[in-house]
């Protein structure tokens, strides 16, 4: 009974259901054999879960890129070290990144912003496809990515201190990196009836990479031929340093945990075409492939989280409090433009944003088959800008949301869940005027770029679903409404975006974007075969869209935020076949369709729409056997060798200013082996990407608009020691 209730508690904890390290620890203390838990409690939603091993064996330079090999997840890369994730083509602020129970702030402000998370400090990732507003509020329109860290006590339960170190390298961008984790627990020896445990963990990662290479000597942009020195993209080098600390304390019913994450990165933007315009510069970019010249960006993200939970047999409560600070600097060579004189320095833009979050939730098992949940989420944001370029105004934003949901476990096969949520938002945008004069008639004025604006938003959302499991069959259906509030840029932008050289006009009349989505997930498995299909259809009555207009403002094309009806549909499918206990043959595929049904871009799709993809793989593995299950792609056994092909369709369904992108395929190899050395576990992983050095364009890549192909062949190697 105890095992059951506590397992339930894990399943049901909201929304910090991701915040399960402490819970897991407790399970291990109480029950020793804890079953693997589901992170999201909405059992009717289509989801994929992967662990730290999956991320490390992907050996990509950034987290979103590591998740790209999951059907339904796309990554938009910005050079080799930064990437942004998208679920079924929806990224930016149509996707909630929930890190240890708290909404992560960082990637949703611009095309060239990365995720700002150390992928080596993550132990578990769950990708929830489809509308997830009920638990995560605004932004969870396309879905949610739940990142969680927990103590890895499985390796050495008997030891008080354990850890791991990974050293990794990539040939394409001459990356070298190291990541180390050390963790420990201290159990109180007295009072065995109510054990107390103190635990801690330290994590540090550093990586440094040079300009990345592409399989071409030059490329053409606007009929301007740009030669590449040694086939590398000038000034795309970067470095990243991350550190984190976790301190926790457990008793039988209580756990509390403090986490501090710091992420720092600096990376260059491709020098010859920053934004859409071709540029030449006096900077000698080619003298080193590892230095970072202008234009460049540097990012500092500090996050502090505190989590406390009380878990009892029939009820539980959790409180999360967090503070985040995003400090982002974008520097470029000062260049006069229009009436703007040459700026005095290279500080084009700086954002300093503070975010404070407090969440509380409660669970109550009202009857044997019924569980109720309640929650309150509140957030405050404070943003200040500086620099000579203007896009995002200063703003303050407050939000509060309340939700209630019920889960009804009808019998061993059927589970129903439903919930409702209400949110209130307040945004206050500050006025901004140019720092230089613009002549208007006979006078000259400091033009207003953003007007002072205060808006309130309300939103009511709901979700309902069902899950059926019986004899290898799993059927899930979910329907829900999600929303996102317009961000300050969409409401208040009124100026030139120097990154893309266009004039962006916000729209202070925008309403919260609504989304209705229905998802199905059907899976069947036996000992040899696993088949899964996840179709979906979604409708936006008022999708917020930055529409290019035929008009000009201040010499640049005017892009205006508008709202349009949009319909989306698509599916992912996975087939895994195990003809022999050491061999897995699998194919994953995805397809997505989107149409704007109203507005001036009626008949067009949506920007950055990923084309169809197929990912066949043959994997030979030895050592310990595992259950055939693709939804938890774990490194299997002691060793593996795999060959996979990535096939991507052409994307002709484009919107201005995109270009049609041809289809492509790449061939990739990977292999790994684990060895036991005394008390340590040594692992070696090798990976060869794009071994044919295929020149191809990724439709969702940031550099696609300026005709830069994707990275050429790459060899990665990683050596890890777990002690």
């Amino acid at each position, binding site marked *: 009974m105890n095992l059951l209730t506590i397992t339930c508690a894990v399943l049901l904890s909201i929304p910090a259901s991701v915040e399960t390290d402490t819970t897991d620890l407790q399970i291990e203390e109480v029950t020793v054999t804890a079953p693997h838990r589901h992170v999201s409690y909405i059992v009717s939603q289509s989801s994929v879960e992967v662990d730290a091993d999956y991320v490390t064996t992907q050996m990509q330079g950034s987290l979103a890129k590591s998740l790209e090999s999951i059907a339904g997840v796309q990554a938009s890369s910005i050079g080799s070290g930064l990437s942004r994730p998208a679920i079924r083509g929806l990224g930016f602020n149509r996707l909630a990144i929930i890190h240890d129970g708290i909404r992560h702030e960082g990637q949703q402000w611009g095309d060239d912003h990365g995720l700002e998370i150390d992928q080596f400090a993550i132990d578990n990732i769950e990708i929830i496809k489809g509308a997830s507003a009920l638990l995560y509020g605004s932004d969870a329109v396309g879905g949610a990515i739940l990142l969680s860290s927990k103590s890895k006590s499985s390796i050495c339960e008997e030891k008080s201190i354990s850890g791991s170190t990974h050293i990794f390298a990539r040939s394409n961008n001459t990356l070298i990196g190291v990541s180390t984790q050390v963790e420990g627990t201290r159990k109180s020896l007295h009072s065995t009836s109510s054990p107390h445990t103190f635990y801690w963990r330290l994590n540090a990662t550093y990586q440094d990479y040079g300009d990345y290479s592409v399989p071409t000597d030059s490329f053409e942009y606007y009929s301007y031929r740009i030669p590449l020195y040694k086939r590398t993209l000038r000034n795309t080098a970067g470095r990243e340093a991350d550190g984190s600390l976790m301190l926790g304390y457990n008793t039988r019913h209580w756990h509390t945990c403090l986490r501090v994450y710091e992420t720092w990165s600096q990376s260059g933007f491709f020098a010859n075409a920053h934004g859409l315009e071709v540029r030449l510069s006096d900077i000698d970019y080619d003298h080193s492939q590892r230095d970072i010249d202008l234009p460049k960006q540097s990012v500092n993200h500090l996050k502090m989280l505190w989590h406390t939970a009380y878990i009892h047999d029939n009820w539980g409560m959790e409180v999360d409090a967090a503070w985040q600070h995003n400090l982002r600097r974008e520097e470029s060579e000062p260049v006069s433009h229009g*009436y703007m004189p040459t700026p005095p320095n290279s500080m084009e833009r700086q954002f300093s944003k503070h975010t404070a979050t407090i969440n509380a939730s409660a669970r109550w098992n009202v009857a044997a088959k019924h569980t109720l949940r309640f929650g309150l989420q509140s957030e405050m944001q404070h943003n200040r800008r500086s620099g000579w370029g203007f896009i995002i105004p200063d703003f303050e934003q407050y939000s509060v949301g309340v939700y209630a949901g019920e889960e009804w476990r009808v019998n061993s096969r059927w589970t129903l869940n439903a919930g409702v949520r209400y949110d209130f938002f307040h945004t206050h945008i500050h006025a901004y005027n140019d720092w230089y004069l613009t002549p208007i008639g006979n006078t000259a004025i400091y033009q207003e770029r953003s007007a002072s604006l205060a808006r309130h938003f309300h939103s009511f959302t709901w979700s309902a679903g069902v899950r059926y499991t019986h004899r290898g069959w799993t059927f899930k259906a979910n329907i829900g409404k999600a929303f996102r509030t317009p961000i300050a840029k969409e409401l208040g932008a009124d100026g030139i975006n120097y990154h893309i050289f266009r004039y962006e006009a916000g729209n202070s009349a925008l309403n919260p974007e609504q989304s209705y989505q229905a998802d199905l997930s059907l899976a069947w498995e036996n000992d040899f075969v696993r088949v899964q299909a996840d179709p979906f259809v979604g409708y936006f009555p008022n999708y917020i869209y930055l529409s290019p207009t035929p008009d000009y*403002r201040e*010499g640049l094309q005017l892009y205006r935020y508008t709202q349009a009806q949009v*319909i989306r549909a698509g599916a992912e499918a996975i087939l895994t076949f195990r003809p022999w206990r050491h061999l897995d043959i699998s194919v994953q595929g995805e397809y997505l369709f989107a149409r704007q049904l109203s507005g*001036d871009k009626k008949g067009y799709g949506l920007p950055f729409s990923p084309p169809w993809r197929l990912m066949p793989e043959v994997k030979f593995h030895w050592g310990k056997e595992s259950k055939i299950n693709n939804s938890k792609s774990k490194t299997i056994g002691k060793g593996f060798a795999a060959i996979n092909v990535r096939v991507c369709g052409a994307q002709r369904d484009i919107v201005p*200013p995109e270009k049609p992108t041809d289809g492509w395929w790449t061939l990739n190899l990977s292999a790994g082996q684990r060895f036991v050395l005394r008390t340590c576990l040594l692992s070696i992983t090798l990976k060869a990407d794009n071994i044919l050095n295929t020149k191809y364009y990724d439709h969702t890549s940031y550099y696609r608009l300026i005709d830069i192909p994707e990275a050429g062949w790459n060899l990665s190697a990683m050596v890890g020691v777990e002690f």
Partner: protein
Amino acid sequence: MKKNLFLALCLCAIYIGFTACENKSKDDTPPMIDDASFLPADCDIYYIGDTIQVHFVCSDDTELGNYNIEIHNNFDHHTHSTSASDCGHEGEHHDEEDTEHDHEHTTAEGAWVYNQDFPIARGLKGDTVDVNIPVPVEATDGDYHFMLRLTDRAGWQTIKAVAIHLHEQGE
């Protein structure tokens, strides 16, 4: 569950309905500027006080949008050029004239800036445009960029840029 399935099927039906009656003739191509007849030509030299005669022929398969002409200095040797030619003017400034001169230009705020948006009448698929732009007498001499930006009604844009040089009268 039946209700959810029903709703999902309804949405599917709506979606099929929408796609069936969808207008497939969306404009997927940017407007065109005829290179051969384009004036000013790359590397053209003008005297301060003269008039730059702009002439171009443009077309679009659906409907033309608007255009913008921008002339800005290239004293700091950045380029937005869509033409690959190097007229040698920049080189002259760099190599023969000393850096002091260069510096003077880069910081000179009196450099000529011309930036004007022009409408094209609605409903046109092709147009021939002639614009006369007088070079003001107070303009500073040196290298300039002439840029033409042209849109179509759907929001596609084509950019044409050429390098021009302004001389003092009698230089």
